[in-house]
């Protein structure tokens, strides 16, 4: 079975400060890891993914995430937060092989960037 944990329901950060949204995962095998963002009354919008290769992945809107196999983590980061980054963020995982093709999502982290 695969699972994702986002330990923080809520993260508050001041505009211009760096932000981190935490994610840890559990899978049997090599993971595909994803970050999505959801704005109010909207669907999920893809931010970035890790498949293989470089552990540091860069994505949309200045976001990046680092895959850490030993800590089974994939934390989302941004050097300088914007008020417009305020949204609900989901981490997701699936395995490279096997019959399970669906994503398993974390419970989400509400990010609020304060002006």
């Amino acid at each position: 079975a695969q699972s994702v944990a986002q330990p923080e329901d809520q993260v508050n950060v001041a505009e211009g400060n760096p932000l981190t949204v935490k994610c840890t995962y559990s899978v049997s095998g090599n993971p595909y890891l994803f970050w999505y963002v959801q704005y109010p009354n909207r669907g999920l919008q893809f931010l970035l993914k890790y498949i293989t290769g470089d552990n540091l992945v860069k994505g949309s809107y200045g976001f990046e995430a680092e895959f850490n196999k030993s800590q089974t983590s994939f934390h989302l980061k941004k050097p300088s937060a914007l008020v417009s980054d305020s949204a609900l963020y989901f981490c997701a995982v699936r395995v490279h092989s096997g019959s399970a093709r669906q994503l398993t999502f974390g419970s989400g982290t509400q990010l609020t960037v304060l002006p």
Partner: protein
Amino acid sequence: GAGVSQSPSNKVTEKGKDVELRCDPISGHTALYWYRQSLGQGLEFLIYFQGNSAPDKSGLPSDRFSAERTGGSVSTLTIQRTQQEDSAVYLCASTTGEGETQYFGPGTRLLVL
């Protein structure tokens, strides 16, 4: 280009009625997923279609839920005899295939009274 579209955007129904939710995937995407997003359960996988293969129905919560994908494109999720606990946002996603990014539609917000 056009993204994943879903209709209706909102649906209010009475308990016991049947509802149909539609998903139009991105053109050329061979895989299609349905998920449900609810306050108590977060984001849950429901069903997965890949090409002409038999769908993976392992996430469907009960036999009141079913889905079809016609012509390898449009999909319809049907909920029979709706219950209040079916109230949620139903999200559809499509992808080109193995390991690729799933792109989500805006969702259908279902409210069962």
